[in-house]
C-alpha cells in the first residue's frame, strides 16, 4: 500500500494508475515540437543577443532565458507563423526588462563627414549596379565585403542596421532596445545606410562590379 510523499510523481502515478509513458507523452511532444520549431533558430537568436548584450557571456544568458521562456509558453505559439520573429520578440522583451539597464552604456553617434566622406553625398551605389542579370551585383559582393563595410560604420550604426535588416525589428522596437526616440532610429538608420552605400560603392568600383 502506498502513501503520497508530497509531490513525488512516482507515488502519484501509481496511485492514479497512470503509466509513466502516458504521463510523459505531453512533455515529450512539447520537447519534440520545441526542438523542431524553435531550436533551429538558435544561431539567429544568439547572433541578435550578442548585438543587444554586447558580450558573449550575457548573450548566452539572454539566449538561454529566451528559449526557456519560449518553451514555457510554446502553447501560445501559433504553428505556421514566424517562429524566429516570435523568439526575437521574446529576446527583445527579456533584454529590455532584465538586461538593458545593466548592460547598456552611453549611445554614441560615430558617423561624420571626415570619417565617411560619402555620408552626405548620398551616393547612388546600387543605382548604377544594374546589369542584364539583375542579381549579378548582389552575388558579386562577398560576405566579407559586406561584413567589412558593416564593421567600418561604427558599432552603433552596425547594430541599428542589423536590428532592422537581419532581425526585422520595427523602428518602435529598435527605439525600445536602444533607449532612444523613434525619430532618432529613423535618422541614424538613414545615415548608416548612406555610409554603407558609400563604402560598398567604393568596393564595387575597385572590383569592377559597378559599371559607370
Amino acid at each position, binding site marked *: *500500500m*502506498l*502513501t503520497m*510523499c508530497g*509531490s*513525488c*510523481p*512516482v*507515488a502519484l502515478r501509481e496511485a492514479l494508475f497512470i503509466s509513466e509513458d502516458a504521463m*510523459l507523452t505531453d*512533455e515529450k511532444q*512539447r*520537447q519534440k515540437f*520545441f*526542438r523542431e520549431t524553435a*531550436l533551429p533558430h*538558435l*544561431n*539567429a*537568436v*544568439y*547572433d541578435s543577443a*550578442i548585438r543587444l548584450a554586447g558580450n558573449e557571456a550575457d548573450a*548566452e544568458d539572454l*539566449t*538561454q532565458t529566451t*528559449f*526557456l521562456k519560449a*518553451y*514555457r509558453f510554446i502553447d501560445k505559439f501559433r504553428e505556421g507563423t514566424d517562429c524566429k520573429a516570435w523568439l526575437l520578440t521574446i529576446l527583445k522583451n527579456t533584454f529590455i526588462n532584465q538586461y538593458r539597464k545593466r548592460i547598456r552604456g552611453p549611445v554614441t553617434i560615430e558617423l561624420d563627414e571626415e570619417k565617411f566622406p560619402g555620408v552626405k553625398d*548620398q551616393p*547612388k*551605389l*546600387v*543605382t548604377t*549596379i544594374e546589369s542584364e542579370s539583375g542579381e549579378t*551585383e*548582389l552575388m558579386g*559582393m*562577398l*560576405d566579407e*565585403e*559586406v*561584413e567589412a563595410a*558593416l564593421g567600418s560604420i561604427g558599432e552603433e550604426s552596425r547594430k541599428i*542596421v*542589423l536590428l*532592422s*535588416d*537581419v532581425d526585422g525589428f*520595427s*523602428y518602435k522596437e529598435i527605439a525600445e532596445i536602444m533607449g532612444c526616440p523613434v525619430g532618432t532610429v*529613423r535618422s541614424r*538608420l*538613414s545615415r548608416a*545606410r548612406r555610409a*554603407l*552605400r558609400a563604402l*560598398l560603392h567604393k568596393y564595387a568600383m575597385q572590383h569592377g562590379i559597378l559599371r559607370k
Partner: protein
Amino acid sequence: MIDCKKASQYITACVDGQLEQHLHELLDAHVAGCPDCEATLFAERRLKEMVQLHHKLTPAPDKLQQAIMRAIENVALPPLCTGAIPVVPPRGPAAP
C-alpha cells in the same frame, strides 16, 4: 507634392516598411517624376537585400544548445523520487 530633400527623409522608412500611408503616397508621387530619388530608393532596397543576404550569423556555442535542452528536460518533469516510498504499516489490533 514633396521635394527631393523631403523624399530622401522618407526613403529609408519606405524601404523598411515603416512609412505612414499618407507619406508613402507623397513619396510615390515624387519618385514617379524624379529619376534621382527613384534611383536612391532602388539603391536602398538593394542595400537592405545585400545586408540580409550576406550577414553571417555568429554561431551559438554548442554548450549553449546542450544547456538549453538540459534545462528544458529538467523543467518538464519534477525530479523523480529516488528514495523509498513510505509504506503504511498494516493495521493491527489496537495497542493495549
